[in-house]
């Protein structure tokens, strides 16, 4: 028994050390990506191409999900508020939930699953088929040419997608609340306008989505770059990207919410 426990402990210790080592490597990777970003800004066409693949191609899932989330908020919100006679606060409920939390977080999770995993798979396969090596041998820095444009594309796309998600969600809430259920349209919008503060809520939401964008893109690119060049390696890396990004988003959301929405 003690021997098995010892091996188990050693396994945990091994995993922790491995994890710390990997975190260090990932941080160095992040630093390199930032330093070598000069090419991305000089040849912005590279980033534009990546914005298309990670941002534009995520539009459908973001817009549809936003609409549905907003509609559900409309339904649930109405039934809860009705009990306190505060149906007219539905607009406030829908808007604040979306702008402060659901917009950045859900859009982030969707982005991680769709665009993040695609990036990981792409980079992993490029590494497995020696395309990265080929770039190096052609005296082209793969980090500057392949990784950095994707990073900045992710950071730019995320806040835009979160804003689109929130806007669609508010519209969904409007559809359900005002059009379907019959909450007063004037009250819906006016209460919302007075409750949602630009600096406190919207800007904070944007900051959150930028932070999530940095985290998700960093994780996705690193997992792809570090993946073992085999089929199992790439598929494992893709799974890890989605799982790690999702956990990171939720953890960061907690930290940011605690920092931003104190006492208000």
């Amino acid at each position, binding site marked *: 028994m003690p021997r098995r426990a010892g091996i188990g402990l050693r396994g945990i210790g091994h995993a922790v050390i491995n994890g710390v080592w990997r975190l260090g490597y990932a941080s160095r990777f992040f630093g390199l990506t930032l330093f070598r970003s000069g090419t991305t800004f000089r040849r912005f066409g590279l980033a*534009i191409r990546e914005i298309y693949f990670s941002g534009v191609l995520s539009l459908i899932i973001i817009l549809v999900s936003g609409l549905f989330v907003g509609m559900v908020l409309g339904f649930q919100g109405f039934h809860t508020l009705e009990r306190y006679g*505060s149906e007219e606060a539905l607009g406030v409920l829908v808007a604040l939930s979306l702008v402060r939390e659901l917009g950045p977080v859900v859009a982030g999770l969707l982005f991680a699953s769709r665009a993040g995993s695609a990036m990981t798979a792409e980079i992993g396969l490029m590494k497995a088929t020696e395309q990265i090596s080929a770039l190096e041998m052609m005296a082209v820095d793969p980090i500057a040419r392949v990784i950095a444009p994707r990073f900045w594309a992710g950071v730019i796309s995320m*806040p835009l997608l979160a*804003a689109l998600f*929130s806007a669609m969600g508010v519209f969904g809430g409007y559809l359900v609340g005002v059009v379907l259920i019959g909450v007063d349209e004037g009250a819906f919008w006016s209460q*919302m*306008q007075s*409750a*949602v503060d630009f600096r406190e809520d919207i800007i904070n939401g944007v900051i959150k989505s930028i932070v999530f964008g940095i985290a998700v893109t960093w994780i996705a690119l690193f997992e792809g770059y570090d993946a073992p060049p085999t089929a199992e390696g790439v598929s494992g890396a893709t799974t890890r990207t989605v799982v790690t990004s999702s956990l990171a988003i939720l953890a960061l959301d907690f930290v940011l919410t605690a920092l931003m929405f104190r006492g208000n």
Partner: protein
Amino acid sequence: MERTTLDLWVGIFVAAGLGALMILALKVGNLGATFGAGDTYALRANFENIGGLKVRAPVKSSGVVVGRVSDIQFDTESYTALVTMSLDARYRFPKDTFARILTSGLLGEQYVGLYPGGDEAMLANGEKIMKAESAVVLESLIGQFLYDRAAEGGNK
């Protein structure tokens, strides 16, 4: 060829995203209200108890929003709350204006209500509203109610 279609889509995407942000800011949030106000001037008032009044709460008169609360401080000279309000420059109020802290609805947020008096002289920038009534605090109300009931019971 393929390049320009791509650029077009990216352009549409970025424009849509920024547009959504604008919509959120102006229609959903209160950015329009703050920035559209234009010129403002400041008025101050002392309240014994501000209740749940917060900075950026509306200042209304006859139900119309005429400004926002810009600052709330504790006044150590009079040991009361000093509320500074930022009012739209179009609306001037007489010197004997009455300020009350009211609640919108039962569970709503608190705001400052201004009741103008009849004085011909207007309040200038930075001047203090002399008559201010505090917020209605629920506990005092209940206490008052119980006291009244007890007094009634005693009288019988």
